[in-house]
């Protein structure tokens, strides 16, 4: 009898359990259940952390809520240079915009300047948001549509209103969307661009924090400053 036979004979004393695969499936189900619970716990922590950070991380007076009655009717389609641009409803950002659009600027130099720069029709959308304080989004959509998966995020302190003067600032790279969200807070009396989103070199989205009391002209002036900065950056 060789070594292998000896080992086989020894192993033959151990009969494998008959229901091994069924127990394995139950074990897998339990493991997946634990993973789901862990994921839910992480999500819950983040969900609790967001409002907490909005309150604790503020460096200025918190302006809560926005007067929905003052916001213009939400629109989902814009026209620029005679081209209709529908906001893609399946995209989160687009839905966000769709729900909180304040107004759309298609007149004047804004859209035209962008279009001239990029040599393609684009729309310029401002939208309000109601997370903690009035938050306006400026979304520039290029005609063929946007792919938000291709977006990269940049923090940008591009324009700030100081004594009715719009100041242009430079851009700063950031790693993550939430970091910008929480790091740049509005200050009373100031308009401050929170972040800029860039898609494949042709599309951009801006999100603005706008202090309570800022009127349409403030936003429009700021938007013009942003567009001017784009022209400067990409020229």
């Amino acid at each position: 009898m060789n070594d292998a036979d000896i080992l086989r004979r020894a192993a033959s004393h151990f009969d494998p359990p008959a229901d091994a695969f069924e127990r394995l499936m139950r074990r897998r189900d339990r493991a997946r259940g634990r993973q789901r619970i862990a994921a839910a716990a992480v999500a819950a922590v983040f969900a609790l952390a967001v409002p907490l950070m909005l309150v604790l991380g503020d460096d200025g007076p918190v302006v809560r809520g926005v007067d929905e009655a003052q916001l213009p009717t939400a629109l989902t389609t814009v026209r620029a240079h005679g081209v209709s641009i529908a906001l893609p409803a399946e995209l989160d950002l687009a839905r966000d915009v769709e729900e909180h659009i304040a107004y759309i600027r298609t007149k004047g130099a804004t859209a035209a300047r962008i279009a001239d720069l990029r040599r393609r029709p684009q729309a310029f959308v401002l939208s309000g948001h109601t997370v903690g304080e009035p938050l306006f989004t400026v979304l520039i959509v290029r005609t063929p549509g946007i792919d938000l998966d291709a977006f990269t995020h940049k923090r940008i302190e591009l324009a700030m209103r100081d004594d009715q003067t719009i100041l242009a600032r430079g851009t700063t790279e950031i790693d993550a969307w939430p970091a910008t969200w929480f790091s740049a807070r509005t200050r009373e009396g100031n308009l401050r661009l929170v972040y800029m989103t860039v898609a494949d070199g042709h599309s951009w989205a801006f999100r603005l924090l706008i202090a309570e009391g800022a009127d349409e002209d403030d936003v429009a002036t700021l938007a013009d400053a942003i567009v001017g900065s784009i022209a400067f950056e990409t020229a």
Partner: protein
Amino acid sequence: MNAIGVTPPLEVGTSRTVPFEVFFAEQHDALFRALCLVTGSRAEADDLSQEAFLRVWERWDRVSRMDHPDGYLFRTAMNLFRRRYRRAQVAAKLQPAPRRTDDFAEVEDLDVAIRALRRLTPQQRAALLLSEWFGYGTDEIAWILGCRATTVRVHISRGRAALRAAPDARGTG
């Protein structure tokens, strides 16, 4: 199939993609029995084999394309065992009055070979089993056990010596 209904791992699973259920059916008994001999505990072997299969199942898309998914399974099981064995050793050291225990002593003491294997370390048992029973080469065992080939050779040599030293091991049993 061999005499005890176990298909040696090296003869299956090479460069073919099979459903996980088939792989499980082919490999479970072999792994379970090998772990019984390595750990000396039927319960421990059952738990380790379940955990090893679970981990392989989670990665089956990748593992099934390996040349030796069975080797990966054994390696996973042995890594799990080594981790538990280390933790058990640490825990034993932390006991104020350490109880001298040997899991292997709890195995049904039905065979002289089991008594002979009891004198080996788990690593030596595993190397001996993988070599003599499953037919793995030294390099493959080294990969599975996560040690050097020279160490594997030493383990196997000592294992063989232990088996031969058992007076009744080569008898009729």
